[in-house]
């Protein structure tokens, strides 16, 4: 359950080298927060979300490519 951020390849490339700015890292709070966040990230992607992506993909293919226009972007 202890996740070493340094070895955390699963969640993909992190911005900023994966570390908070130097002046906030020296703190038990930040470390616990990272630990919590890593454990949440490592839970993986729920099936319903993967299904949603598949459906979006299929809908797009059925439309003959191009982004769906059903959803209007919000400013």
């Amino acid at each position: 359950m202890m996740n070493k951020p340094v070895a955390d390849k699963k969640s993909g490339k992190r911005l900023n080298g994966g570390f908070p700015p130097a002046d906030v890292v020296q703190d038990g709070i930040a470390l616990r927060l990272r630990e919590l966040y890593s454990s949440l990230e490592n839970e993986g992607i729920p099936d319903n979300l993967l299904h949603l992506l598949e459906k979006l993909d299929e809908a797009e293919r059925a439309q003959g490519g191009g982004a769906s226009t059903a959803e209007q972007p919000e400013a």
Partner: protein
Amino acid sequence: MGEIESQQAQFKRELLKTLPSLRAFAISLTGTYDKADDLVQEAVVRAWSRQDSFEIGTNMKAWLFTILRNEFYSQMRKRGREISDAEGTYTAQLSVHPNQIGSLDMKDFMSALNKLAEDQREAIVLVCASGFSYEEAAHICGCAVGTIKSRINRARGRLQELLGINGEGDFGPDPHIAAVLRHSVSA
């Protein structure tokens, strides 16, 4: 599909890569798994519908986080503040996933995190956990860098108060990680 990956495939691949972190952010924002998963779904649908406006090669993670955050606040405005549960639901829901958040220490930490004001919570999560710089976090939250910094300071103060710890010298359950982190940052 030829040798050049289609824009659409690239988009989807980048999206998938970012999802675990996006979901962790959503859980931090909403305080519950159910609401977080709804929120992530909404954000994914919205991002998908706007993929033409995303430039491949630019910061997909910041783009997605911004969409999710906007979605969160627009839902909050619609439904009032019930989205943000105070205490209780968070830890109750999390206990459904016993293998993940094992330690009592983490549960205490989460419930403390959930007591923060949203603006403070998102600032500390974005910078200290999601891996964004102050500048990126400010961009995502639509505020000044100084505002992000002061929100993080207030968040830390409040968390220390809630957890009854004093920041200096308290490195939580694993001093080794603290040492590694300190080393990596100074290296």
